């Protein structure tokens, strides 16, 4: 059965996204426009855009799903996503903006001019991270489409990929900024409205008191993560956010380092407000759709909740709103990832031209669609958590030490990133192949961040110390450029 309202919401979101993109097309003219909107985006716009870009399938669907699936442990994910932004503010926001790099590989090159191999390795890591991050978005799209409209699941990724390609190819970053900013507020509304209606319905109900009384036992009954896993996830999310390529590219659109910091503080507020909603919906999900906790469809909690509580037209209409918001989430995160992925690919293989950017965009979306269609989804927030662990073990040490430690060398950076990538990647792969065992070594394989992030840092520092003679001679100048406050003019 095809739910007409939900299908309509989906079409409206896709068409609106593209219309805003075409509006932006008239404004973007040069390559610089294309990549970073010429660095003239104001903090509020930029903050909304960052929020829009960051709140992915994992946030929109995954958080509530995880709360239903694993109870209180699920609450750590939105905290980690938000606190990760605080870490970004503390260590990365302003210096990275001042570095005047477009992408993370650019940063690597600015810091270590003569090391081509460091740039190459950073580019490949960025490409891998982006793809790993896009795939769960595509899974979310497949799940949403099949549950909400009854259409075959593979169509979801294809729709998302097509809209993203058109948006990014036509307008680049400038239009993406408008699209992203719009999508934050749209996603917020798409969860606020159903949450309010559900709470109005639920709170006066007689049965809800009884349900609430049972919730205490229910909340404790759900098997959560143990202490090691919780701490490992906290570390992965805190340090992983630092290195997310699609998030970092947004900071280049701030006019100054101080503007980058103000933007980040606004983002903290926007994220905190947003995450109250999936948390509330997750608790409602525990009350009204607890059967989803045992199934593979726990990520669909947000989608199924409105019609589980309310009947008739209102339930359908609210479902349609949520479906629209979910697609906005897939579209915004995917287009942000595709922009940074295409940026990295085109600089590496097409000398950074606009035409190369467009070809790279198509390449960047095609592969994840294929992967998403042939693989099946696991818990969205968990899958994204793995990407954060990988980023925290690779890009994060490069950025932190590159920005703050003048004795870092190119060889040290390469060694550290490779050590982190191999350790984290291997243990994630091995743990997914093994059947679940309740032993510490298995938890350490499944949530590697707690040891793989320190490992990457230690290797990076040790190898840099060993190759201390190859510290670039311009290091002090670069460090000054990263940290000395810029004058308030726009470059």
């Amino acid at each position, binding site marked *: 059965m095809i739910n007409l309202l939900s299908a309509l919401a989906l079409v409206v979101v896709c068409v609106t996204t593209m219309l805003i993109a075409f509006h932006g097309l008239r404004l973007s003219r040069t390559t610089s426009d294309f990549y970073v909107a010429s660095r003239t985006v104001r903090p509020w716009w930029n903050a909304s855009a960052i929020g829009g870009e960051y709140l992915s399938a994992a946030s929109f669907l995954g958080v509530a799903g995880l709360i239903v699936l694993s109870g209180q442990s699920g609450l750590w994910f939105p905290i980690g996503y938000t606190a990760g932004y*605080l870490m970004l*503010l503390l260590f990365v926001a302003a210096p990275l903006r001042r570095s005047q790099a477009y992408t993370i590989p650019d940063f690597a090159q600015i810091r270590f001019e003569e090391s081509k191999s460091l740039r190459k390795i950073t580019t490949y890591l960025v490409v891998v991270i982006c793809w790993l991050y896009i795939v769960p978005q595509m899974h979310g799209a497949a799940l949403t489409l099949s549950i909400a409209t009854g259409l075959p699941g593979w169509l979801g990724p294809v729709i998302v990929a097509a809209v993203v390609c058109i948006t990014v190819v036509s307008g680049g970053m400038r239009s993406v900024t408008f699209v992203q900013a719009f999508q934050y507020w749209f996603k917020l509304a798409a969860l606020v409205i159903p949450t309010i209606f559900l709470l109005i319905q639920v709170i006066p109900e007689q049965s809800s008191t009884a349900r609430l009384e049972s919730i205490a036992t229910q909340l404790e009954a759900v098997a959560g993560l143990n202490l090691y896993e919780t701490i490992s996830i906290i570390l992965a999310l805190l340090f992983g956010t630092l290195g997310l390529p699609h998030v970092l590219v947004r900071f280049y659109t701030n006019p100054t380092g*101080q503007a980058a910091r103000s933007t980040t503080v606004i983002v903290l507020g926007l994220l905190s407000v947003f995450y109250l909603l999936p948390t509330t919906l997750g608790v409602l999900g525990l009350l009204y759709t607890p059967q989803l906790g045992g199934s593979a469809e726990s990520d669909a909690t947000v989608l199924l909740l409105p019609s589980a509580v309310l009947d008739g037209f209102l339930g359908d209409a609210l479902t349609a709103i949520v479906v629209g918001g979910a697609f906005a989430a897939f579209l915004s995160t995917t287009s942000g990832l595709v922009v940074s992925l295409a940026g990295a690919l085109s600089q590496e293989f097409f000398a950074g031209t606009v035409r190369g950017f467009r070809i790279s965009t198509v390449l960047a979306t095609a592969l994840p669609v294929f992967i998403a269609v042939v693989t099946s989804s696991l818990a969205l927030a968990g899958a994204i958590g793995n990407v954060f662990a990988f980023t925290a073990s690779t890009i994060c040490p490069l950025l932190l030490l590159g920005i703050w430690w003048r004795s870092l060398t190119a060889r040290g950076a390469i060694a550290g990133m490779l050590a982190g990538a191999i350790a984290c990647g291997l243990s994630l792969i091995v743990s997914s192949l093994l059947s679940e065992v309740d032993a510490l070594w298995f938890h350490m394989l499944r949530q590697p961040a707690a040891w793989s992030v320190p490992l990457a840092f230690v290797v990076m520092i040790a190898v840099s110390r060993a190759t201390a003679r190859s510290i670039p001679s311009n290091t002090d100048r670069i460090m000054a450029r990263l940290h*000395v406050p810029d004058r308030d003019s726009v470059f």
Partner: protein
Amino acid sequence: MKRDSPEAPLPGRFAEQRPQRVRVQAPQDASLTIATAKPEHTAQEFYVQQLIRSQLRLACAVAAGLLTMLVGISALLAFWPAVYEFALWHIPLPWWILGVGIYPLIIVAGMLFNGAAARNEKRYRSISRD
């Protein structure tokens, strides 16, 4: 009133004779370039290093506070189950802490850091612009 009397203690009188304090400040002229591109003078390099060090110390302090808080809360919940006995509207206290309570703390930490980092930069500007 003590200061007006002739037999006022000596320090007060000296204070009156002291020339008025003049605040020395560089002009806010935009044509003055901060030596960002190449800090040639060793003094300049020293100021930059001081700036980096103070910013890093600030960031590490806030990050350490955040990590301690988060790890502390997770350890508290793991080792002190009695905390689940407290409940508001039947929802146990840990859910309120994790679901709602931490976010304002994160925002406040961000705002405080933002102000402090801007102050560090202002101090750097005021001493280095010569």
